């Protein structure tokens, strides 16, 4: 499986995720949240940064169900879902992830028929990666 190739801007997200915490980058001056993380604020150009805790609740904004050909370890789990989740606390922050039956479950563990745009979801963590379950 591919693990996140982190960079300087994104590293704090993964450090918090490893502790089971979801935080998003926000401007340390004007307070505007932003994703993906980047060096400065596109609204006020400030380089001040804070990592703001969020509830981990959200709604499915869209989803796909990939089928092979895929990379081998993904093909083994196909068809699986990939979702984009819009965060309840910050609606313009949308995170790509997988909707699963529980923490650590396989990518294809949830029947795709159960997924709907708008469905309420909650983040869970497994091995430092965020996953999503139906709320």
């Amino acid at each position, binding site marked *: *499986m*591919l*693990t*996140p*190739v*982190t*960079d300087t801007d*994104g590293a704090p997200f993964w450090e918090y995720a490893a502790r089971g915490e979801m935080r998003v980058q926000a401007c340390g001056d004007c307070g505007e949240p932003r*994703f*993906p993380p980047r060096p400065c604020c*596109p609204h006020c150009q400030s380089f001040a940064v804070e990592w703001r805790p969020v509830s981990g609740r959200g709604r499915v*904004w*869209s*989803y*796909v*169900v*990939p*089928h092979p*050909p*895929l*990379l081998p370890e*993904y093909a083994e*789990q196909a*068809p*699986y879902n*990939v979702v*984009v989740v819009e965060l309840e606390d910050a609606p*313009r*922050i*949308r*995170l*790509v*992830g*997988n909707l699963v039956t529980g923490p650590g479950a396989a*990518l294809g563990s949830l029947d*795709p028929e159960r997924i709907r*745009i708008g469905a309420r979801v909650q983040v869970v963590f497994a091995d430092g*990666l965020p996953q999503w379950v139906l709320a």
Partner: protein
Amino acid sequence: MAGIGLKDATAVVGIGQTTFAKRLAEDEKTLACRAVLAALDDAGIAPGEVDGLASYTMEETDEVELAKAVGFGDLTFFSKVGYGGGGSCATVAHLAAAIASGQASVGVAWRSRKRGSGPRPWTNTTVQLPTPAQWTRPFGLLRPADEIAMLTRRYMHEYGATRDHLFNVALACRNRANQNPAAVMYERPLTREMYMTARWISEPLCLFDNCLETDGALACVIVGKERARDCRRTPVYVHSAAQGLPAQHHGMVNYWNDDPLTGPAWTAARHLWKHADFTPDDVDVAQIYDAFTALVPLSLEGYGFCGRGEGGAFTEGGALEIGGRLPVNTGGGGLSEAYVHGFNLINEGVKQLRGTSTAQVPGAATCLVTAGEGVPTSALLLRT
């Protein structure tokens, strides 16, 4: 408008292409040379007169190799455009700007690619773009088809677009390919049943929503309008040209701004029409970038052929077919002629305005050509 302006200052006077196939024996460099020499021969211009070049950053045959092989003269302008298929029309736009401003006099744009027999870029896990590598690929959003399927699902949800609308796009392209002996799908008709029962690639996109995987190369030649009058072929003028990278846009995975369903087409279109003497209503035929069927309804909205959310419905009633409201991709497009990062759409636009297309729109005098939607893009308005 300040400056010399691009409007009708340059023209495409030569086009060339190789055979298109799933697998060609020759390498990309050889195919590039063949397409470029064919385009120059079509124009009646000697290779030694070429002084300007433009291609894609993903093009593997560089200027030095090409110039040495085909015998170009001294080059005074060469440029490359990024973002894969988003750069197709920009190659012509850069040459038009260079020629109009005196940086070059004879320009060649080209693309040579063995995407049919060569590797699929997404299978290379060591060379990944930084944002997908961190935020999307680990979750199994691996391929361009997955990334665009995500926007497609949201588009269908918000506006009621259907798989039948996407089929209309696939069918129009296939029907035109069935008229074009050079198209990979020349002898392969498509039916609604084939489409609706096809295997999924990434739901909601099936096999026929995805472009071909093709080996092939194309090129075109651009000169100033005075020189164009002396060339062998009817000049096809570059009437307007634009690139587009909207504020806060993110190529392919554009999930992170206020309105992900308005993409680069909207930005390019505003500039394109601002500098044009005609409007979307006056476009006789369009070549719309079709790596995936869903990009066509989005582009129809972006370039102003219909309103927000109306792109799906626009495809109904044979609108995209010959005789319809807006015939598109009349050589078969990336879906059914060849997928060479959209360069075949440029050459097909030229054929239409010369009156030599295999699916000729009677009297076509204006053509829109677009590059990839969903990535930083570019577009051209061509006219006779």
